[in-house]
Structure formats: C-alpha cells, structure tokens
C-alpha cells in the first residue's frame, strides 16, 4: 500500500452507490479532461500476494469506443489486473486515472458508481429470478412510500435495455431457463443498467456456441458505436483478432507488449504470450497407428439422445466428437461412462458385450473419463496430488487396505512422466494451475491403463503453453494403443488432433468425417444440421 496515500480520493465515490453519480463525477472531471487524454489509464500497477508478485508495474489505457484485448496465459495476471479495476483488490502501487483524474476504488460499489463493470467468466446471475429482476438486481425502480418494487417500470426499463443488447426472452422468463448466450446478454444488460462506460468481458464466449458468440460480437460492436470502451479477455485468439482494436499482452505479471490492429495476428500473440515461438502447436501425426476395434457402440439409446447411435473406436485412434453446446455430446459420453445408464443397445469392448450400469462398471471394463468440469468432477480440489491420482485405482493396489507406499510410487511416476508442476505430492490440487490440475485428472486414469479414454473439452480454460503439452500427451497415449474419444468445442483442436470426427447436432449423430475431409466448414455444416455432402 506504499503509494495508496498518493491516490486522491474522489469524494463522490463514497456517497456514490446510486447510479446517477457517474454524471456528477464526469462533470467535476470535465475541467481536467483534454481531447487526447484516454478515458482510462492504469499506470504502474503492482500487486503482491504472499510469495508472489502477481502484477509488476503494468500499464493499460483505454479510449472511448475502443475494444482492447487483454491476453496472456493463465496466471499471467489478467484477472488480478481487472479485479483491481473493479475495486475488488487494492493495488499495492500505481495509479488509476479516469477522465484525467486519479480515483480510488475501495470496493465494487465504487467502480460501478464510476461506470466500470466487469462481466465474469462464471456468470453472477440469480437463476431463480426473472430476466427483469436480474437486470435491475439491487437497484430496482421503487414506488410509493413503502418503497416497494415498481414492477411495471422495472419490466419496461428492463425491456428497453434488453432490446439494446438483443435479448429475445421475455422479461418474466426465469434466467435458469435461458441459454448460456442469452444469460450472457442479461449480464451485459445488467451492467448497462448502471450507465456503464467501461465494460470488461472475461472469457465471454467460453460457454457459447458460435452462433451465440456472433450475436455477442454484434452487441459489442453496437456498444462500441455508442461510445462504450471495452476490455476483452479471451483465450480464443481468433476472436481477439476479429474484435479488438489492439491487444495488451501480459506474461508472469508483466506487460510484455502491445499489438496494434495491423499486427494483431494469432501467431504474434502466441509468441508474446509464451515468450517463445510455438512452431508446431499440434503434435506431428505419425503414420496410421489405428489397430483393431476396441470399443463398439451398437444402436445405443441414451438420456438426451434423439436417435440411436452406432460407432466404432479403434485402438490407437483419436475420435473427435464435435458439435455445438446442447448437441448431446456430453450426454453420449455420460452414457458410455455409466453416469447415466443407457436405455437400450449394446456396448462392446474388444468384441465382448459389456453391461455398463454405473461408473464402477465402466472403470472395470477399462473406460476412463476426464470430464469437462475439472474442478467439480475431474479432481477433488481439497485432496492431495497423490490422493487424486490414486482415487480410481487405489482399490486395485492391496484391497481393502490402503497401500500408501504404492500410492506415492504411482503418483511420483505420473508426476514425473507428465511433468506435473507441484511442490510436492501432498500439495492440494486446488493450488495447482488449470493445466496441472488437468494432468492430475489424466494421471488418475493413466495409472489404470484404460483401453478407452474419453476426454471432454480437455483444454478448457487452460493456457496456450499447457494446451500444446496436453495435445502431445493425448497423441502419445493414442500411439501406445489406447482408444481416445475427444469431445471438443474448439474446432482447431478437433481438426488438429482427431483421426476421425463424429459430428453431432441436437442429439443425433450427423456423420463421421475422415481426417482429410475434416475442415472447419465441413464440420460446421454438419454441426448446424446441414447435409454431409
């Protein structure tokens, strides 16, 4: 807090929990405002956590009607920087200058009063309230001397904002019934209800389908034309390229560079982000390693499927499953893994008909699943690295007793083989980075040497450097003769890694495309319900 005393407090921020105050602040600042001064400047922001320098003198500026990309690997400091802008964290050093004058942000209320809003990756909506109530949550229009919520005005005002961002749902629909894309728009409308001038979007498209993402971009362009400044955080570099006017790159808490529109290319961004040139992002594809059919699914009917599904998986092959969110991919693999039992049809492993009624059956049959939701389903966050790696296999070591020695041996072996970065085997998994957590989730299955490994969105929320490591790992597993099923929404990943691609749409398998025909165009056509030809 060395420099905190330098920061001149803007008096209005403290009484300023009402949305009207930004205008008063803007007026008081107008005297200092000059034409070429940016709307927002963050200068020399430094933030220390115990043992870690999270941000080291980072600068960021933002102009009216500008979209600035903020990119970097996980742990680079993007979120910390934005939390300082939001008033959630206090910077140890540095200044925040808004409209030419320094401001102090003590909490989120302060930043809202100044017209700064952050839209988090995990949405912060009340699912059991309707759209209008969510948009005006906390500052609903009131009426009467009892100050009850003025429902009529609430719905009318909300409808106006909803129209501005293109929400098609009715104002009285419950938010939990909305698609992820619509929910995202509600979140934006909520920010706009506070006269927001600076909008920070943290990974807004990570749970959206391409169509929904396009709609979001449309809204962003519109807001831009209305003068709203935006900070756009994303791991999807293609989107940054498409949407941003320039991008600021962070690495290990330092600002390592800025790319203007002309240089805003994925390859340039990656180079700055990882500090090295990743020439080959996807591993070299060796000659066909596919062997005999290891898994065969015959006429399987499952919860969430609209049509019986048939497919084969060969040993040593990576079968990609592509499709939009809601296409039934996750439901299909949940049935394969016995989370949800299938209704009818057969599952054959090595030509043996195998009954899979629960996850224990699946594991016994030699199937492993690395689920999409790593923190909730993939690992037990509060347990150690060793305990997580042994979770699925410990009952095979020396049942029913706990073989701690063997457990540590197995864990050590996998930590070394997969290069899991952890201070010790007893470190709780919650303190590892996303990529290392994912490697722990993978190790859990590798220790059992399964015949079939299913990966659901294996690189979601993982930084670029770790991504290519995980790809290499997956390819390596296939080369050892494992059958791999990879569900992914990232087209590059499917095309770059899969030997064959099965495309799903609304609970139906639309077709299987070979490696040579797998192009973004072909996959998208099937994924949106189009014809194979």
């Amino acid at each position: 807090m060395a420099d905190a005393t330098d920061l001149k407090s803007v008096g209005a921020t403290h009484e300023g929990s009402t949305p009207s105050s930004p205008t008063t602040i803007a007026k008081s600042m107008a005297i200092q405002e000059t034409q070429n001064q940016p709307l927002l400047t963050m200068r020399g922001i430094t933030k220390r956590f115990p043992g870690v320098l999270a941000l080291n003198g980072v600068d960021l500026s933002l102009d009216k009607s500008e979209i600035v990309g903020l990119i970097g690997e996980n742990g680079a400091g993007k979120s910390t920087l934005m939390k300082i802008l939001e008033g959630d964290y206090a910077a140890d050093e540095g200044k925040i200058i808004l409209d030419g004058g320094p401001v102090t942000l003590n909490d989120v209320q302060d930043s809202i009063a100044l017209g700064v809003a952050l839209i988090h990756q995990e949405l912060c909506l009340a699912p059991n309230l309707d759209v209008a109530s969510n948009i005006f949550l906390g500052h609903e229009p009131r009426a009467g001397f009892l100050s009850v919520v003025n429902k009529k005005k609430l719905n009318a005002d909300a409808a106006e904002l909803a129209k501005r961002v293109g929400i098609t749902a009715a104002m009285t629909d419950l938010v939990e019934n909305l698609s992820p894309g619509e929910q995202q728009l509600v979140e934006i409308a909520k920010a706009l209800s506070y006269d927001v001038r600076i909008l920070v979007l943290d990974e807004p498209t990570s749970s959206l389908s391409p169509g929904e993402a396009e709609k979001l971009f449309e809204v962003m362009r519109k807001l831009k034309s209305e003068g709203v400044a935006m900070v756009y955080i994303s791991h999807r570099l293609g989107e940054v390229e498409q949407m941003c006017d320039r991008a600021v790159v962070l690495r290990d808490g330092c600002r390592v560079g800025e790319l203007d529109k002309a240089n805003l290319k994925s390859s340039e961004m990656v180079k700055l982000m990882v500090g090295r040139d990743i020439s080959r992002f996807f591993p070299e594809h060796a000659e066909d390693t596919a062997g005999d059919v290891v898994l065969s699914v015959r006429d399987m009917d499952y919860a969430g499927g609209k049509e019986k599904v048939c497919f084969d998986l060969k040993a040593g092959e990576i079968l990609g499953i592509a499709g939009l969110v809601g296409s039934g991919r996750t439901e299909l693999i949940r049935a394969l893994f016995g989370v949800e039992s299938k209704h009818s049809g057969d599952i054959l492993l090595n030509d043996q008909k195998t009954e899979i009624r629960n996850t224990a059956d699946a594991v016994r049959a030699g199937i492993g699943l690395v689920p999409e939701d790593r923190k909730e389903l993939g690992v037990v966050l509060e347990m150690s690295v060793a305990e997580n790696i042994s979770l699925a296999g410990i009952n095979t070591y020396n049942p029913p007793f706990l073989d701690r020695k063997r457990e540590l041996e197995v864990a050590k072996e996998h930590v070394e083989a997969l290069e899991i970065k952890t201070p010790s085997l007893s470190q709780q998994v919650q303190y590892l980075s996303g990529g290392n957590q994912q490697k722990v989730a993978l190790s859990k299955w590798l220790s059992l040497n399964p015949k079939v490994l299913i990966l659901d969105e294996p690189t979601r929320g993982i930084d670029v450097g770790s991504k290519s490591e995980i790809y290499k790992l997956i390819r390596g597993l296939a080369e050892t003769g494992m059958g791999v099923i990879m569900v992914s929404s990232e087209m590059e990943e499917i095309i770059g890694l899969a030997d064959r691609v099965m495309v799903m749409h609304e609970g139906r398998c639309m077709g299987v495309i070979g490696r040579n025909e797998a192009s973004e165009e072909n996959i998208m056509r099937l994924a949106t319900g189009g014809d194979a030809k």
Partner: protein
Amino acid sequence: MKKVLGMAALLAGLIAIICIYQYTTTGAMAFFGPVNISNLAQRIGMLGIYSIGAGIVILSGGIDLSIGSVMGLTGVIIALCATKYGWSPWLVSLAILPLCALLGFWHSFLIGRFKLQPFIVTLSSLLLLRGLARGISGGKGITLDNASFATIGNNSFLGIPIPFIILIVLALIVGFIMNYTVYGRYLYAIGRNEEAVRYSGIKVNKIKTLAYVLCAVLAGIAGIVEFSYTGDVQPANSGLMYEMWAIAAAVLGGCSMRGGEGTMIGIIIGAALIRVMDNGINLMGIPSDWQWTVIGLVIIGGVIADEAHKQRQAKKLKA
C-alpha cells in the same frame, strides 16, 4: 493434525483452569481425585461411542439426527422384553444391533436412491423412533433390576470404566477403517466432492451406506451401555437431544459440517472436552442452569477460532 493439537491444547487449558480454581479456593485438586477421574472416563466413554457415529456421517458429508431416539428406543426395548417377557437383556441387546444396521440401510437407501436430504430423512427417524419408544411403553418409565446387566455401564476392568474401554475398542476399529482401508479414503473423498468420486468409478452409495450403518449400530451400542448404566429408561426423555451433543463433540473435535474433514482422535477429544466442561462447571460450583450457556459459548468460540486459523492458512497458500 494441527487442529487436533489445538483442541488438545484447549482441553489441557480447560483442565488447568479447573485445577487452578480448585487449588486456590479449596487448596486441593478434586479434579484428579480417583473417583472424579473414573466418573469422567465413564461419561466420556458413553458420549464418545455415539459421537464416533455422528462424526463418520458428518465426514461423509451427511448428518444423522436419529442417534438419541435410537438410544432411547434401545433402552425401552431391552427394558420391556426383560421385565414383561423375562428375556435375557443380553440376548435382546445382541438382537437389537442388526435392527440398528437395518435402520442405517434404510437411511442410506432413502438418501442414495431417492436423493432425499440426510437432514430430513434422519429427522423423520428421530420423530418416528421416539414415538415408537413412547408408544410401545405407554409412555411410562421402566426400571430393570439386573445386577449382571448393570456391569457394562457401572463396573470397571483393571480400574478403567467399561464404557471407556468399549469406546477405545470401537475407536480403534473405526479408526482403522478410516485410516488404513480404501473405504476410509473414499469416505473422506465423498465428503469433499461426491460427484468427482462417482466420476472416478466408485460406488458412492455403498460407501455412504457404511457410514449410516456404522452410525446407527454405534448409537445402538451406546443405548445399551446407557441403559445398563442407569437401569432405568424414560421413553420420552432417555437419549433426548443426545445427537446434538454428538454433533457438538464431532465439530469441536475438528469435523467440518461441509464434510471430508475430521479425525478419530479429534472426535474423542471433542467428546472429552464436552464432558470436562460439564465436570468443571460442577466442580467450580457454577449453577447447573448455566451449563448449556457455557458449553454453547465454548463451541462457537472454538469453531470461530478454527475458521479464523483456516482463513489465514488459505491466504498464505494462495498463489
């Protein structure tokens, strides 16, 4: 482990306060008198037995509110069968334990298969079994005069009260399951993240069944010991609110109500803390009407101190 040390320190501190108080007011330390120690051990033994059950269920992320009612009903059944039909209280006791196991299966069936909440399921058992105890006895207290049966609750072996010996034996068995078998590992894991454990190919319901069955059987054993001790059962009052003491002991001993956290030694220290508090309040001459107030304050104080410590730890570890 640190938590257990903290609680042990709290226990030692409590004993020290009692002793200092006694020494300065009476010049002697009645706390360490052989009669007081023996009584204390007996009472810790009885509370400890059913606290282990409560602790195991809490560890698995659930709760069992039926413990006190199970204990009351156990006493009523033994008393009725022995006085009305002249059956051996020993045999009736043995026969009751499988019934307790059945109750545990019933709880875990409703919780696992029907996805009902443990709180509601065991709350219904709390009411149902208490009602059963009052119904079959007509609500009247029953006294059993059987010297041999009374030995479990009242006598000592090698100078150690038998309830305390039973506690140690049970703690060793359950402690072994918790620490040296895969079931124990699964129990901790389920308490922390049930779904992640299911996604690791483990039959979660089976492991939870183990917890609820153990809890019900331990409550049955505690009920037998308690009835042997008093020789008298009041259908409406025997065992009333005992589940709350068990939960308090488990939480004081370091179990988290969120599940997945706690140790056997911690649970026993928790039980000891509660009984030493009882004892100290008596020895220090505080009116017994204030007893609950003191214990309530100590419980919330202990839990707050623990949470504060945990938050500091988490801040330190956060990258």
